[in-house]
């Protein structure tokens, strides 16, 4: 069986000592930043990108992927013990997880998270292995027109599924697309929007943008709120869950996994949306929903399985179509470009060891996460006691040095200040920065494919509609926009995202 052969190839790559080590470093860092509120995977991966330059591509991607799905694990610990989402995807886990902790069942909550996440991770790994090859086959038939339409669909979907105003999200995408054009135009050699600054001729690095918009702006906003966090429980005991409790949680885990796997594939989806959807579904299907919000084990199991499945499934569009579906995947594009790998359907055939090695490492990483998170829970609890006043200067130091080492250039560090101001403004105006980063990464690609498509059709824009695949993608994009614009859906959507806010 081909799938089996591929997985064996992947495992053989992933179990090499070096790759195991980087997988471990990745999930360890991921757990660490997941546990710490206010440090997310986006700035962490941005910070570490320059460092991965010296690593082999497989090891680099394995480590960065580990940070992403590891953060989903770590975030749940904070949600359960402190009632604060360590990670945005753990927002819903706070609801029932913290209530379980208050009833002295913190250990059980943590255990079910680990079990659920492991099951979800295993399933998502298998799904990537099964789904990716046929999807990549379709993608290989894509011409420039299809790629352009696919990117339009991806960007629209990212807008629709993101929280907040749709108009503003589209504005952020356009802003990102424009920022992506800064630098030398590949076709004419013209310097665009560089204002005569030599450092800008290669364009703005997305690390600079990610640091400013995500890391710095978040620190500033955190400092504006004078909150103090208190840890609910000092020592966690009673990790063992009873068979009866496991049987109660298992259907929720399966549903959460299924929802996460589906939503994760969608552009703009990923961990946060999956977790939220899973919780809502769980409340709907439960025979007795009275315990939700009061420490129902299903309210922890479903969203945590979903966010883990979702975070892994979001690798599918990246690996098969070359289209990043969220901000973290946009950074993974960067990581692949650093190693001169063009993300897309050809990765599977040109770098099979990279593709399957990365997938196999995700499963191994999930095993490591169970070990890291259950027996070593005490360490993470201690970590939660590090006060923010000590934490954020350290984050700043690492961000500055990480940005510098990108090009050994202080100009990049200065640029992060500008994007820090922008990021702060965006928070104040309730403009989500994630679509901007997506637009930024896709900007040059979109222009290139638009140019090529119209060159081939001699300037006839109907090419996007006359080619069936391209037309289907554009129709889907339009349909999405229309559905969301409908008054009924709009109202529901607004309610949904209100509920998503941390309690």
């Amino acid at each position, binding site marked *: 069986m081909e799938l089996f052969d591929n997985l064996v190839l992947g495992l053989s790559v992933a179990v090499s000592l070096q790759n195991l080590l980087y997988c471990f470093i990745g999930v360890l860092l991921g757990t660490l930043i997941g546990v710490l509120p206010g440090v997310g995977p986006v700035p962490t991966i941005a910070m570490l990108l320059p*460092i991965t330059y*010296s690593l082999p591509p497989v090891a680099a991607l394995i480590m960065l992927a580990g940070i992403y799905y590891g953060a989903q694990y770590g975030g749940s610990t904070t949600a359960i013990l402190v009632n604060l989402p360590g990670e945005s995807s753990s927002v819903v886990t706070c609801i029932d997880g913290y209530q379980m902790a208050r009833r002295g069942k913190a250990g059980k909550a943590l255990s079910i998270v680990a079990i659920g996440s492991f099951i979800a991770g295993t399933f998502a790994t298998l799904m990537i292995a099964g789904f990716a090859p046929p999807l990549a086959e379709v993608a290989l038939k894509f011409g420039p027109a299809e790629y352009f339409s696919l990117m339009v669909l991806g960007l629209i979907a990212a807008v629709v599924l993101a929280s907040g*105003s749709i*108009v*503003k999200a*589209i*504005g952020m995408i*356009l*802003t990102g*697309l*424009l920022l992506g*054009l800064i630098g030398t*135009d590949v*076709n*004419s050699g013209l310097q*665009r*929007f560089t204002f005569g600054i030599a450092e800008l001729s290669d364009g703005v690095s997305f690390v600079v943008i990610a640091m400013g918009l995500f890391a*710095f702006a978040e*620190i*500033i*906003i955190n*400092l*504006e*709120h*004078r909150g103090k966090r208190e840890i609910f429980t000092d020592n966690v005991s009673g990790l063992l869950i009873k068979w009866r409790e496991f049987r109660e949680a298992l259907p929720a885990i399966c549903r959460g996994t299924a929802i996460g796997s589906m939503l994760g594939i969608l552009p703009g989806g990923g961990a946060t949306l999956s977790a939220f959807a899973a919780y809502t579904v769980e409340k709907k299907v439960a025979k007795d929903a009275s315990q939700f919000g009061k420490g129902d084990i299903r309210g922890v199991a479903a969203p945590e399985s979903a966010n883990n499945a979702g975070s892994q499934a979001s690798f599918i569009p990246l690996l098969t179509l070359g289209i990043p579906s969220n901000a973290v995947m946009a950074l993974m594009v960067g990581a692949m470009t650093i190693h001169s790998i063009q993300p897309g359907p050809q990765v599977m055939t040109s770098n099979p060891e990279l593709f399957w090695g990365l997938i196999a490492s995700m499963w191994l990483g999930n095993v490591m996460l169970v070990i890291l998170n259950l027996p070593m829970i005490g360490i993470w609890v201690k970590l939660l006691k590090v*006060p*923010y*006043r*000590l934490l*954020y*200067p*350290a984050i*700043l*130091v690492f961000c*500055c*040095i990480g940005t*510098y*080492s990108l090009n*050994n250039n*202080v100009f990049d*560090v*200065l640029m*992060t*200040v500008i994007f*820090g*101001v922008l990021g*702060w*403004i965006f928070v*104040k*105006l*309730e*403009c989500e920065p994630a679509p901007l980063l997506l637009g930024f990464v896709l900007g040059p690609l979109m222009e290139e494919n*638009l*140019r090529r498509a*119209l*060159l081939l*059709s001699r*300037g*006839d*824009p109907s090419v996007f509609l006359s080619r069936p695949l391209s037309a289907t993608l554009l129709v889907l994009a339009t349909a999405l926009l229309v559905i969301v614009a409908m008054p009924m859906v709009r109202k529901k959507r607004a309610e949904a995202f209100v509920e998503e806010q941390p309690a």
Partner: protein
Amino acid sequence: MQAIRHPKDFWAGVFFIALGGGACLIAIGYTMGSAARMGPGYFPRTLGLMLALLGASLVLRSFRSQGEKIAFPTFRPLVIVLAAVALFSVTVGSLGLVISTILLVLLASIASHEYRRVESVIAAIALAAFVVVAFRYGLSLQLPTWPPALAG
């Protein structure tokens, strides 16, 4: 003039108009070309125009819809944190990693309402030591440890 009912939408719209309009204006200097043979100005001008129009619709909408005021509890963290980063980027080449890192941490720490002087000094020194060991020696970062002028 009618009152702005949704300040967040209004200012986001103004931002988009400024950015889109600005990009359009600059891109006028770039060759437009035709759809079949796009010049470097084609895509940016289209994007800029779309963004400006979108911004205009936001501004118009902000006179009708209702929204909260923009909250500015304090500007302190914004100014201090970004000043600290700027200070680091300006000084690191001439003063070296150790001094710049210490300056960054000392300045940035003031932004917290839980600021403690002695603690932040200790943190600054510890972080500087860690940075030198991990980045200068561990990852051979190309930055001087001490001010290059002193090393002669």
